[in-house]
């Protein structure tokens, strides 16, 4: 299990290769990568991500450990960035390895649903029109009820 919270970009290809190499014959590997998306008006200049140093690592580790236990994962990876990111940059990734594809998929969705609403990150959008904190969505909270 590997959990990284960092300001620097990560290398998706390298992380994916490393994870696949170490997965130990699990059969199924799922990755999810989040990318900063421009807004509909095309005016997003940056996304600033604030976090809670100390608690973030702890929360991510707990979420990843829950996923490993619940979905019988061989391995799990979580990388989440903070700081100032521009459209097109990768914000975060998760990877899961399991013997059965359904478990690998479910675990990755579980990780994402929990990261969205239970890991102490806050996003702020900087646009041509001004700056604003991204509001949490009711649907993100509702997504946790599946698990």
């Amino acid at each position: 299990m590997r959990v990284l919270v960092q300001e620097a970009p990560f290398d998706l290809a390298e992380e994916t290769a490393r994870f696949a190499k170490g997965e130990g014959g699990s059969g199924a590997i799922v990755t999810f990568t989040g990318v900063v998306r421009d807004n509909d008006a095309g005016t997003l200049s940056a996304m600033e991500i604030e976090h809670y140093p100390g608690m973030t690592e702890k929360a991510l580790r707990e979420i990843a450990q829950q996923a490993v236990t619940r979905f019988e994962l061989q391995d799990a990876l979580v990388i989440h960035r903070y700081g100032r990111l521009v459209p097109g940059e990768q914000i975060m990734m998760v990877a899961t390895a399991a013997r059965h594809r359904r478990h690998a998929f479910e675990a990755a969705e579980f990780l994402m649903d929990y990261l969205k609403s239970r890991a102490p990150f806050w996003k702020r959008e900087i646009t041509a029109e001004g700056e604003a904190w991204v509001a949490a969505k009711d649907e993100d909270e509702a997504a946790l009820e599946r698990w």
Partner: protein
Amino acid sequence: MDVLYFAWVRERIGLPRERVESTAATVAELVEELRGREERYEMAFSDLSALRVAVDQELTDFDAPLQGAREVAFFPPMTGG
């Protein structure tokens, strides 16, 4: 104890963390003490349903006891991922 503020809570209060001496038994009591201080606290804590709280880096609720707590953090609902 240390009290931390994040995102717009930090902006409204105007600082990221401060040392608070308090005998509040619960998070809710601590919030009441802070609201009584200045208008910027009153503004930050006006709608508790829009806030989340962590005690010693664990998410909890406003009824949580503060006995022995070293760090309390207030912030809006999280938007990770």
